[in-house]
């Protein structure tokens, strides 16, 4: 699998570390791991950096993950970047809303590294 640039979006720095660690445990070769604590910061990073994968929480201050995905799809360079939501909001309605706004996958917290691997690897294989 080719080396990837990843953006992890979560208002918890501990969760960002855990998600990054899980990606490495899944066997991803991470060239660059960018971090943002809300959707607004993430949009700025997505505009300035080529990304292969984004993992985002939903409940965040300033701009939540759903609004982030909606606006991300308006950035030409990020239109097709896989975005996986990682969140405590596990209701079917939340999943449908996230996918309809452009998310590529959904992982419920708490999650195992295996679940990250199962959802993320197929997206990177295209």
């Amino acid at each position: 699998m080719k080396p990837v640039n990843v953006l992890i979006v979560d208002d918890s720095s501990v969760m960002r570390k855990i998600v990054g660690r899980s990606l490495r445990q899944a066997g991803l070769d991470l060239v660059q791991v960018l971090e943002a604590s809300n959707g607004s910061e993430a949009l700025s990073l997505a505009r300035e950096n080529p990304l292969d994968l984004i993992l985002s929480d939903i409940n965040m201050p300033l701009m939540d993950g759903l609004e982030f995905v909606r606006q991300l799809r308006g950035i030409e360079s990020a239109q097709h970047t896989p975005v996986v939501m990682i969140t405590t909001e596990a209701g079917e309605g939340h999943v449908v809303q996230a996918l309809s706004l452009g998310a590529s996958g959904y992982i419920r917290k708490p999650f195992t590294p295996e679940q990250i691997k199962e959802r993320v690897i197929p997206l990177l294989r295209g």
Partner: protein
Amino acid sequence: MDQAITAEPERVRIHLSARAAGPGAQAVGKAADAKQPVVRIDWREELAKAAGEVFDVMVGAPLTAPPEPRPPFIPDFAAMVGIAGSMCGLVNLRTTADCARSITAKMLGGDEVGAAEAAQDAFGEVCNMIAGSFKGRISGLADGCALSVPTVIFGRDFTLFSLARGEHYEVTFEFEGKLLSVSLDLQG
């Protein structure tokens, strides 16, 4: 996490209000009409299962039953997540700062635990996941309720006062020799 309230050394009283429960609340706890069976929920059991799942999966160390007789427990580290929507309430996780640091170290594995902010961050996130797991277990709550951003309080001398003023459920566990409790306050 965007909120942290220091409760030391002054005494702090926190008031938390919740919106009135909507019609969906009836379908969760009671029969919506005479034809529907009454759904009885063991709130304590669901809360315990949610906490157990989070510690098993994300912390990597199980919660166990507390010793009996129970030793004195003076929590000085608390996290809260509000639930609002078809059911309104508050999930509260309490322990000692020492235990919160242990939980953080476990969650981060070999990674550096770092400053005290890491323990606040981790503990708030654990509470958030327990609240999320809990509402995912109750039919109708997963989509019918939203969770607040976690709030973390530390210090020895504080009182939580929930305006929910309804039912209170609490489960106490032991985590690596330290006590920890999870509670749920439902709006009356």
